[in-house]
């Protein structure tokens, strides 16, 4: 309470009043994802200039390892003329910041860069005005350099002197906010000192030294440990548990069972006691007897759906219905994928009292901490400010921390036992209750005219729900929502960039008996895998160069994407493909959100006898507009390459009637050090363009480029992923050796 009051009082009256209005407006919304981009009133709260001239950036995005916090700090430093060493990055909690946007969709920089730069620039201009007053000069004669403000006659006022004089340095921004200050960071003519240069990631030193950063690192006096049963399927109902057998176990502090809510949890003195307790809980689950068997592929089958007529949603229909004959008629089925972040999700909850009023502190690693805060307040029937959210670093998210139930599990248990409780999911929980990337099934039919140009493009997709499911709506409302709107997660990137006169692009959603949700790049990578395979196969069939063929179909509006593709070919061509049997090179290109562009080239070797795949080399050329921290952008591209290798060659979340089958880490193999080739990354940075998303972009080209390289190497287009050595061995046995 007190600190909330401090947060409000920190601002000048006008600014605080406006900020409160924004605050209340957001509170009135139902508990859904925090999807609103920050507005211009948010920026001022992100910055605090201290009397010693140091700047604290209260980072407005969750730090998941994407490194966006340092990028945003670089913008603030650039605008204020500070070295980055004078900036401290703070993953501030709900006491110090207005509600945060959910950190997703590669929006950390795209949505926050301008408000951040604007807030810092407004602060700079306010200080310039103060300096002008003291120097008795018109404002435009006062020059800004790194250390402060300088008069034409050489008199100077340092930043820290001005900061000392400006009481409540963050609040003054609102006053300056009405005039658009010049933004140095986005001025292409300006020589930048911080933006565009290397900067170490936030908390890098803390990470290598093992300092507490993550939710599980939080310790509280009297802390006990909790764990909650995870439903194996979204339609599973909990009928009962053997609570008495667990209560008697030494070390058990409490057992909480609420069957109506499907909630059963145990609190114990140690995590090991929880292992024993959960093993004895003997849950009895029930799901509808006619529910689709998650182990069968029948739920998501594009041809079966098309046989019943057109799909529910049409994203593009030009001209008459496509009719063939088809140059390529391709089917591609993609399996569900686990997120498999290394950190099992965790929350710590503690109830307390501020001046006699009950309050809740939550320490949490999530992509959407504001949602967790709102959900807790709503369920407790409290005003929002009685729930304090302490935002911790997240040990990998990839879409899997967008919905984080563990916060609710922790506070429910803490309330029941009246002690601080830490709940950390086990690895088995992370598989059982993972909101996997839903399976999808694609049919792409392409026709060409007499000149070999694409004349018809028909892409039909059936997918499980990605965003239009649990993330956005309660179970009962989902079918209605899904009937009205195409799942805008699963359809991301479904409309290909290529110019084709006659198109039909349709989408159907199928309920699947598994927990599903967003996964890095949402539908963009699955859709791109189908799109980029199909166009590659057409070019191959016509005997055309696959890059030239793509370029021929990219309209002038796609010039930036075309530039990436040309450059990746040039760069890849600098090293010839090694001679020999089973060697292949594949290309692909794509845009994410329509404004972040990438092209990729992979070289692979497939050993015919064993089916063993060696990825020899990957080249990625990306244009995400203004690059704030090149090293971090490269890191994101590299990470996407690793995930491309995983999903093309290894990964598949396996389900049977009882839900996800994986229990231990080794049940879900991922690429390791030896599976990663040398990766070359080139950034086509155009400073006139605003910064766009980088967290997911490279995946939309890297995965299909690798798939196309496999096709090039073995002369066969698999109909499903992942492509495992056994598949390649079988294919090799059925085709004559080249």
């Amino acid at each position, binding site marked *: 309470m007190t600190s909330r009051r401090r947060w409000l009082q920190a601002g000048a009256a006008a600014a605080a009043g406006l900020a409160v209005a924004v605050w209340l407006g957001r509170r009135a919304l139902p508990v859904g994802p925090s999807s609103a981009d920050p507005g211009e009133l948010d920026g001022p709260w992100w910055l605090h200039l201290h009397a010693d001239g140091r700047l604290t950036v209260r980072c407005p995005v969750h730090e998941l390892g994407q490194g966006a916090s340092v990028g945003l700090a670089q913008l603030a430093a650039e605008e204020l003329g500070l070295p980055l060493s004078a900036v401290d990055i703070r993953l501030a909690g709900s006491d110090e910041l207005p509600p945060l946007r959910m950190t997703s969709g590669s929006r950390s920089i795209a949505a926050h860069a301008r408000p951040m730069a604007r807030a810092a620039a407004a602060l700079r201009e306010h200080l310039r005005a103060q300096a002008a007053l003291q120097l008795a000069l018109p404002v435009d004669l006062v020059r800004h350099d790194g250390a402060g403000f300088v008069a034409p006659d050489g008199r100077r006022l340092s930043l820290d002197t001005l900061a000392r004089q400006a009481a409540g340095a963050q609040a003054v921004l609102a006053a300056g906010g009405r005039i658009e200050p010049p933004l140095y960071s986005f001025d292409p003519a300006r020589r930048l000192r911080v933006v565009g240069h290397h900067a170490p990631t936030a908390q*890098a030193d803390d990470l290598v030294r093992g300092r507490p950063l993550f939710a599980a690192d939080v310790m509280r006096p009297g802390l006990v440990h909790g764990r909650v049963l995870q439903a194996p399927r979204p339609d599973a109902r909990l009928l009962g548990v053997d609570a008495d057998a667990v209560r008697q176990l030494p070390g058990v502090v409490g057992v909480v069972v609420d069957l109506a809510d499907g909630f059963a949890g145990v609190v114990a003195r140690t995590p090991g006691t929880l292992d024993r307790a959960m093993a004895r809980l003997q849950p009895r689950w029930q799901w509808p007897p006619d529910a689709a068997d998650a182990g069968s592929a029948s739920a998501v089958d594009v041809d079966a759906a098309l046989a019943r007529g057109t799909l529910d949603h049409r994203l593009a229909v030009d001209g008459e219905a496509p009719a063939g004959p088809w140059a390529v008629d391709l089917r591609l089925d993609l399996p569900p994928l686990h997120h498999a972040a290394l950190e099992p999700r965790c929350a710590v909850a503690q109830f307390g009292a501020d001046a006699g009023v009950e309050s809740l502190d939550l320490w949490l690693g999530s992509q959407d901490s504001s949602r967790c805060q709102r959900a807790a307040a709503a369920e407790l029937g409290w005003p929002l400010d009685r729930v304090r959210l302490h935002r911790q670093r997240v040990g990998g998210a990839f879409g899997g921390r967008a919905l984080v139930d563990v916060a609710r599990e922790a506070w429910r248990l803490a309330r029941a036992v009246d002690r601080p409780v830490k709940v950390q999911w*086990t690895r088995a929980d992370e598989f059982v209750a993972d909101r996997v990337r839903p399976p999808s099934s694609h049919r792409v039919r392409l026709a060409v005219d007499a000149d070999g140009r694409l004349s018809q493009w028909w892409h039909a997709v059936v997918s499980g729900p990605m965003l239009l499911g649990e993330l956005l709506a309660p179970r009962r409302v989902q079918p209605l929502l899904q009937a009205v709107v195409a799942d805008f997660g699963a359809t991301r990137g479904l409309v290909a960039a290529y110019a084709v006169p006659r198109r039909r692009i349709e989408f159907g959603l199928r309920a699947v008996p598994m927990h599903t949700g967003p996964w890095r790049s949402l539908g963009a990578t699955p859709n791109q895998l189908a799109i980029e395979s199909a166009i590659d196969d057409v070019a191959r069939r016509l005997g055309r160069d696959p890059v030239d063929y793509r370029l021929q179909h990219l309209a002038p509006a796609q010039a930036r994407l075309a530039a990436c593709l040309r450059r990746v070919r040039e760069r890849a061509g600098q090293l010839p493909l090694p001679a020999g049997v089973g060697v292949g090179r594949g290309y692909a290109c794509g845009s994410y959100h329509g404004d972040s562009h990438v092209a990729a080239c992979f070289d692979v070797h497939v050993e015919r006898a064993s089916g063993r795949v060696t990825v020899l080399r990957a080249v990625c050329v990306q244009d995400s507009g203004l690059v704030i921290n090149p090293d971090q952008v490269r890191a994101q591209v590299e990470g996407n390459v690793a995930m491309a290798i995983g999903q093309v060659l290894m990964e598949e979340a396996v389900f049977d009637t009882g839900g996800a089958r994986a229990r231990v880490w080794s049940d879900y193999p991922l690429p390791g050090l030896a599976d990663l080739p040398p990766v070359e990354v080139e950034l086509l940075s155009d400073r006139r363009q605003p910064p766009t998303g980088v967290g997911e972009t490279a995946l939309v080209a890297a995965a299909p480029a690798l798939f196309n390289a496999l096709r090039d190497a073995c002369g066969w287009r698999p109909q499903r992923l992942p492509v495992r050595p056994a598949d390649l061995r079988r294919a090799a046995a059925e085709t004559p050796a080249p």
Partner: protein
Amino acid sequence: MKLHVNGRAHAVEDHWADETLAVVLREALQLVGTKIGCASGACGCCVVHADGRALRSCTVTARQAQPFEIVTLEGLATSDGLPHPVQQAWLDESVSQCGFCQGGQIMAVAAAWNAGPPADAAPLLHLLQGHACRCGTQLRVRRAVERLLRRDRQ
């Protein structure tokens, strides 16, 4: 019960004795640099040094660890607080993304390094193949190991 960790003896309450060493380091001794990613010895996040050798601390109980001198990530820096050469290599190559797995990788390399730097990167890279990283830092891990070996030759 007593555990010898980072150069001193720590008293540990008896009810922790049969918990894994990883859990006890974190929850009883509050040395949270040791991470638990899988609790089955498969991911490598929980590596500590036991008498100088790399040990996945989720695979032994605290009781079993009593005879050993344990060093955790927090105890790796030199006595004057400077980062260990392996930590420095990780910083120089900006390896970490989410960073959750990096401590275990650093400890694994540091154990081998302290035993005598190898002639080339191969044995260290082989060791790291058994460490999981979902962010895809493998390329930078490789670069950090190569930098470490260059440093030794200089």
